[in-house]
């Protein structure tokens, strides 16, 4: 059962309330997205830890309900 982009944003915001999220629907099927996420919570963490925070926000939906989510995480200072 694919996921709408608004649900995707809601899940991420629940875990990362300050996040700025840019979603791109890659295939138009609610099943393949790319997301660029900027949040202060990423500061001091490596890429894997940052991505795992996003995975946690999606609970067990990534790889099940949602087939593919390409993630790019940014800390506010990196964004410039």
């Amino acid at each position, binding site marked *: 059962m694919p996921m709408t982009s608004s649900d995707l944003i809601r899940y991420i915001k629940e875990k990362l309330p300050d996040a700025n999220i840019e979603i791109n629907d890659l295939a138009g099927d609610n099943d393949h997205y790319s997301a660029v996420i900027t949040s202060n919570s990423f500061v001091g963490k490596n*890429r*894997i830890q940052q991505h795992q925070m996003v995975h946690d926000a999606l609970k067990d939906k*990534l790889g099940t309900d949602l087939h*593919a989510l390409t993630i790019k995480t940014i800390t506010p200072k990196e964004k410039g």
Partner: protein
Amino acid sequence: MANNEIQDWIRNQISSNEVLLFMKGSPEQPQCGFSGQVVQMLNYLQVDFNSVNVLADEEIRSGIKEFSNWPTVPQLYVKSEFVGGADIIKEMFQEDELLDFFKDKGIKTK
């Protein structure tokens, strides 16, 4: 296999292969775009690697996700360290970090 046996088998594969890619399909016939992308990047950098086709065994497919606490495949391991999935490897490749990463780990590249 019991779950702990699977986790032991995975741990053994990771520690006995310098560069190991858990992927869908094989390097010659990737069964998923993301797996195929990582294979292309490794080939481009002329990095020798071994792979495990998670589609061949459902227990390995779910076991590797539990092992790394990472919900998707592909997953790349270098000298027993989990490096990332397709998006992180691609980001490192695009930002010219991947070649240096392999060199720092003492892995032969182009």
